[in-house]
Every structure is written in structure tokens, then in C-alpha cells.
């Protein structure tokens, strides 16, 4: 059966001697009806389907995507994983995700290449120092690892870093989360897709949702797509930058704005960057992929857009910052750059839960930093859809918080767009 290959050192070795790899997930035609339809086959949507099938016994599920699976922000992001956010609610969900990352390759029998190589956030001025030290204390009270480093300790952890005092924004210290790191973005989408498909989930690609149908009582009755209508009682919208567009189909206005966010990679070089380095103040972050490319994240454009490109001046601004922090990288050439459309909320925290429309659930607002949350987000969203009420970790991230005023302000912790 498709997706049933068990990966092990032995199976890899055997394949090395010949025989094509079988397809890892099915490519079914959409059926007329499902129990649950998930809109968006990014990491979050696929993880949701996987946990619905594996933990809640709901297997009659379709995951629909207008493009190919993992082709949205999941396949465009710079894969930084960390859990050292400020608020208790955020620490709970990002830490929940981090714990799942630690065992994910084994759980999915698919190597997602989670690499806890450490995420170091640089402080360049007095305010940074105070804010980061406050974060360190808040995190440690919550049992989340985060420690303060002097400039010399930061340099020891990341040798190419320039800690000279004469630069425009000298490094005054850093906050380090050692369990933070990176994972392989495509493998995360593929691993969840493969595991969900093996449990009976239909993943339907090139299938754009164009309408959401509702009955006389207002509840969801199905979706319309470019590949026909599908009946269902529960719909989960997990469409990142396109969430406002989809929710408008059900008449729900969202506290979201969509912006292009860019990233770029250099030509591949031998290992030079042992960890992830981020700087909120001069807006840059960098790590090195296993292929040897330096992976660099730039900022968002200032205006809302679905153009999936982003202005070149945004990327050059980031490169200036990278060159100042890492003078040895100045002569590297950039190979590729691209953009994704990120959905930002006013408090820079996600929205996970029920909506005013019965049967309609939403998981969005991850903005510039939701890759790290993929397993945790899928896990609590699946529980929310299965039970029809928010999972305790998801509960504070309700859509209703914008009416009650209980915002979860992570503007500082999420200041650099990653």
C-alpha cells in the first residue's frame, strides 16, 4: 500500500541497490462527502488531519489545496524553531510544539531533520538587553530554557559573529535557547502527508475552494471547489495568507492583514554557521542549511499584498545587517530569493478555534512565525475540531479575544519576522 514503506537504515540500504521508491501518499479524486474538510495542505492543515485520524478516530477527511501540498508558507519559510515567547499562553503552545518536534521523526517514521542547534537572539542596545533579560526570567519561571550570554560567550557559541565595539550596532549580549533550532520544511509537510494518507485521509491537490455553503440554520453544509462540490459538517480553514479570503466566503470578517515576507539563500559553502542567529533591532536572521546554503530571512513589505514577491529594498536592508554582523559573509553571492504571504493579527498571536459559524473552525494568524508551531498547532486544532470546543492550550487564542480584549501581545517576542 502507498505510504506503508517503513523507513529504516536497512530499508534505505536495500533501496540503494535498485528499485524505484513507491509513492508516499495517494492522489485520490475528491469524493462527494467527508466528515471533515481541511482547507490548506500546509504543515498546519496536514498535521491537523494527521492528529484527527491518529488520535480522534476521524478518518473520513479531505485536505484540499489550491496548489501542491507544502507549496505555501510551509515550503517557503526559514524553519526557525524556538519556544521562548513572553506570555504564558504563548509559552504553553510553542513549548507544546517543541516537545512534539523532539519526537516527531520517530512518531511519523519520517526524518524531519529537527536539529536543536540553538537559537541566539542578539541585543544591540540598552533596551534590548533589558527586554531579553526579562524574557529569560519569564521563560525560566515557565520552565522554558533560555539563558543570557555575554558578547564573549555569544562569540564562543557562534565564531563568525563580529562582537567588535566599533560597529554601528555592537553586540551587547544575547539570549540563547539551546533547544531551539531548525527542521527540514518540506519533510515536515511530506511526513505528515504520508502518515495522514496512510490512515485514510484524502489529500487533494490542485483543488481550490471557491465557496463555503451554509444551511438555513447558518451551519456549514459543504464547500465548493474547482473540482466539484463536497458535502461536510465541519470545515477547518488553515490557509495562512488567504484566510481572510476564505472566511469572507462564510461572511466572517477577520482581524488579519496579509503581507509578503521574503527569504533568500546564498551559494552553498562548507559549514560556517553552527547555530541560528537573530537580531530584532537590525532585522536579520541567518542559519545554514545542510546543503550549505546560508538561509537568510528578510522583513515584510509595509503594505498588504498577495503578490508573493516583496520589494528588493527589503532584502537588501537585511543583507546590510548580515554583512555587518558577519563580515566574512560579505563576498557570498545570493542564489535565490522568494516571498510568501503571511497573515498577521493585531497582537501577533495566532487564532485557533471556533468561529461564529457553526461547523466552521479556523487556524490562522501565525504571521511570520508559525512553522515552529506546526505539530502543536495541528495537535490542539484537531482536538478542537473533534470535540467542537477549544483544546485548553488553544482556548486563549480564540477569535473572540478581539471582542473581549484579552489580547496576547507578542509584538516584542515576534518582532523579527521569522
Amino acid at each position, binding site marked *: 500500500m502507498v505510504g506503508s514503506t517503513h523507513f529504516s537504515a536497512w530499508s534505505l540500504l536495500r533501496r540503494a541497490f535498485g528499485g524505484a521508491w513507491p509513492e508516499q501518499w495517494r492522489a485520490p479524486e475528491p469524493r462527494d462527502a467527508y466528515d471533515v474538510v481541511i482547507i490548506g495542505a500546509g504543515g498546519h492543515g496536514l498535521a491537523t488531519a494527521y492528529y484527527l485520524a491518529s488520535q480522534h478516530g476521524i478518518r473520513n477527511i479531505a485536505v484540499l489545496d489550491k496548489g501542491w501540498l507544502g507549496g505555501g508558507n510551509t515550503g517557503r519559510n526559514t524553519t526557525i524553531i524556538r519556544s521562548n515567547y513572553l506570555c504564558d499562553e504563548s509559552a504553553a503552545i510553542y513549548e507544546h510544539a517543541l516537545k512534539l518536534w523532539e519526537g516527531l521523526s520517530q512518531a511519523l517514521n519520517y526524518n524531519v531533520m529537527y536539529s536543536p542547534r540553538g537559537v541566539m537572539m542578539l541585543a544591540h542596545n540598552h533596551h534590548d538587553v533589558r527586554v531579553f533579560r526579562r524574557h529569560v526570567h519569564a521563560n525560566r519561571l515557565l520552565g522554558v530554557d533560555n539563558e543570557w550570554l555575554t558578547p564573549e560567550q555569544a562569540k564562543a557559541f557562534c565564531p563568525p559573529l563580529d562582537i567588535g565595539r566599533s560597529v554601528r550596532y555592537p553586540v551587547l549580549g544575547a539570549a540563547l535557547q539551546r533547544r531551539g533550532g531548525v527542521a527540514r520544511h518540506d519533510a515536515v509537510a511530506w511526513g505528515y502527508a504520508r502518515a495522514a494518507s496512510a490512515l485514510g485521509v484524502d489529500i487533494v491537490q490542485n483543488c481550490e475552494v471557491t465557496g463555503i455553503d451554509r444551511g438555513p440554520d447558518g451551519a456549514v453544509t459543504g464547500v465548493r471547489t474547482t473540482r466539484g462540490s463536497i458535502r461536510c459538517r465541519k470545515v477547518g480553514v488553515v490557509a495562512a495568507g488567504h484566510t481572510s479570503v476564505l472566511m469572507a466566503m462564510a461572511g466572517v*470578517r477577520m482581524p488579519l492583514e496579509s503581507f509578503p515576507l521574503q527569504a533568500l539563500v546564498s551559494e552553498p559553502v562548507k559549514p560556517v554557521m553552527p547555530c541560528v542567529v537573530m537580531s530584532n533591532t537590525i532585522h536579520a536572521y541567518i542559519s545554514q542549511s545542510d546543503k550549505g546554503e546560508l538561509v537568510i530571512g528578510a522583513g515584510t513589505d*509595509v*503594505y498588504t499584498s*498577495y*503578490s508573493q*514577491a516583496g*520589494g528588493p*529594498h527589503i532584502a537588501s536592508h537585511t543583507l546590510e545587517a548580515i554583512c555587518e554582523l558577519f563580515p566574512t559573509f560579505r563576498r557570498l553571492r545570493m542564489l535565490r530569493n522568494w516571498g510568501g504571504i503571511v497573515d498577521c493579527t493585531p497582537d501577533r498571536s495566532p487564532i485557533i478555534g471556533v468561529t461564529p459559524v457553526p461547523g466552521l473552525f479556523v487556524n490562522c494568524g501565525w504571521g511570520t512565525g508559525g512553522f515552529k508551531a506546526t505539530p502543536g498547532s495541528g495537535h490542539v486544532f484537531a482536538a478542537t475540531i473533534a470535540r467542537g470546543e477549544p483544546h485548553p492550550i488553544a482556548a486563549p487564542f480564540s477569535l473572540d479575544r*478581539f471582542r473581549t*480584549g484579552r489580547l496576547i501581545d507578542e509584538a516584542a517576542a515576534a518582532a523579527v519576522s521569522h
Partner: protein
Amino acid sequence: MLLIPCPWCGPRPENEFRHGGEAHVVRPVDPRCVSDAEWADFLYNRTNPKGIHAERWRHIHGCGRFFNCIRDTVTDRIVTTSK
């Protein structure tokens, strides 16, 4: 980088401007008389359309004035700007 036609100064590069968000968001005249849901709608909910968008820009490094703009959010092409 966009080339934005300021209605007062003419076409100028994007980095002379600040984006002012969706246009025509009206603050309720008497906040005491609106429900929490209406207040939240004013404060936080945005149309965020894929396509034609009515927005405001401010020419901060020029004349300093706000103006309205119609832009297509798929192509980023500016249809028109007005005072």
C-alpha cells in the same frame, strides 16, 4: 519598490511614504453606544481583500499629508490616488 503618485507632490518612491492601512474605517461617533463586537470590528477587523484595495498612505518624508489610494493587491499596481 512602489512608485507612488502623491496627489500633492507627484510620483515618489515608496520609502518616502508610510502605509496607513485600509481606508474609510470610521470610528464610531459615540463609543459608549456601540457593542463590544462593533468596537472590535472598528479596531481590528479588516477587509484584507485579494484584488482591489482602498487604502491610505502618508507622505511622511515629503508633504506629510494623508491621501487615499486604490491598489490591486495581486499585482501591486496603483489604479489611482486622490486627496
